[in-house]
């Protein structure tokens, strides 16, 4: 069964979700990445968008002018880990409920998601045209002084996904679990290769 979250997202909408589940999103999704986070957390600037109950997308899109407005050409997730040092405080300050990006995030984000009830989810990286076609409209844009990738693009989305939950509200971190598995497997695999590459004799 396809599970769809709608903004504004309430705690009870997401508390039963577990890392590894797949969901879709209807409603408001705002792009926010490196400098957007830095401005809020390090410089204490107010975000020009109210994110309470909303979703953000770690993404820097390609957009083009279409009449008075904008058209989303191509938008895919960027590496979420770059926002790790800010995200716990970002969740606390904004009340954002869903963070969409690529790859895993770390213990600070896990703590933020657990304490303030929020999720991190991944949209398949590189699938930027698929994502663009799930955006119905760019409602507005803020902080355009940051350039096309870093501006805050406020989007209305329909059936946006697949979104694979990587951090849930219960402290689970899918990528951390996977990484532990990779580390466990790689030791014996490398030992096997070491024996075969003793080329310096």
């Amino acid at each position, binding site marked *: 069964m396809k599970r769809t979250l709608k903004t504004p997202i309430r705690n009870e909408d997401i508390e039963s979700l577990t890392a*590894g589940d*797949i969901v879709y999103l209807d409603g408001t999704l705002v792009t926010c990445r490196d400098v957007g986070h830095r401005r809020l957390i390090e410089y204490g600037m107010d975000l020009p968008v109210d994110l309470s109950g909303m979703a953000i997308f770690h*993404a*820097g*899109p*390609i957009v*083009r002018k279409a009449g008075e407005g904008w058209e989303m*050409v*191509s*938008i*895919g997730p*960027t*590496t*979420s*880990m770059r926002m790790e040092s800010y995200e716990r405080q970002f969740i606390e300050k904004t009340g954002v409920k869903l963070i969409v990006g*690529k*790859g*895993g995030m770390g213990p600070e984000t896990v703590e933020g998601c657990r304490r303030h009830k929020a999720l991190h989810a*991944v949209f*398949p*990286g*590189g*699938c*930027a*045209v*698929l994502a*663009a*076609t799930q955006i119905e409209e760019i409602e507005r844009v803020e902080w355009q002084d*940051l*350039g*096309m*990738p*870093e501006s805050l693009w406020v989007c209305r989305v329909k059936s946006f996904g*697949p979104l*694979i939950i990587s951090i849930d509200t219960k402290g689970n971190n*899918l*990528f951390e679990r*996977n*990484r532990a*598995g*990779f*580390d466990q*497997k*790689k030791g014996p*695999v*490398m030992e*096997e*290769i*070491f024996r*075969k*590459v*003793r*080329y*310096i004799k």
Partner: protein
Amino acid sequence: MENNQKKRSLTDTMTRFISLVAKRLPDDVYGKLEQLRLKEDSPLARTVYDAMFRNQEMAQELDRPSCQDTGVIQFFVRAGSEFPLLGSLRDVFDEAVREATRVSPLRHNAVETFEEKNTGDNTGVRVPWIDWDIIPGQKSAEIDVYMAGGGCTLPGAAKVLMPAAGYEGVVQFVFDVITSYGVNACPPLLVGVGVSTAVETAAVLSKKAILRPIGTRHPHPKAAEMEILLEKGLNEVGIGPQGLTGASSVMGVHIESSARHPSTIAVAVSVGCWSHRRGTIRIDGDMTYEILSHKGAAL
């Protein structure tokens, strides 16, 4: 054709070729992904592969860049010393990049360092980046266009090892980079390894390694053996598409090498994401061209 006409003709060809590279994967990458897709049976891995292939179809249908991160554009040139526009290639590439940025459109990805301002047209100091090899006596030029996205550029790393670390140290370095930063770089990855004498020579070679068609092998049998061992080994780790675990981790591992100082073994890793947007085009002296990476593509 006058040289001015040739310059205009080549600028036009390169503009269109850059757009093609942004919108369609080269044949070897697409073919490899089709093979790897068939090996996956977990629901998450399948969901991701379905999205990837649907995305590539839609990029064609809608004529759009398949990934929003169209990278900092890099040109790797193997130009004949008799190629008529040798001295004009910098101008040609700059202009083609500006024009492709407008018409494709490409994302604005050139931030002037220290100024910390996005130039808005994908050109800037030393960008687009050009790497030169001059081929004596030849009239034609072979040009690789590579769109180095941020996600797959981040894992890039290089280190100069002491010889006691041996080739075992090289293996360890590759595994450490791929199983840490590689996971977030949109696997399955194409892994380039440079084995060389110094940090910058290894780094350049590692990038050249991922410009080779997938599955081509290093000419030295031991290096070719090591490519296969690393590829098989990394796949056994099972990183899977987007790091969500699965049957494979990589599309391939390529090694490029040079002779080294007896006291050093330099190793570098460059990574290409699954959406490995590179294209190769051969330009003849009269500016006619052949696209080597995307069969049947028209500009």
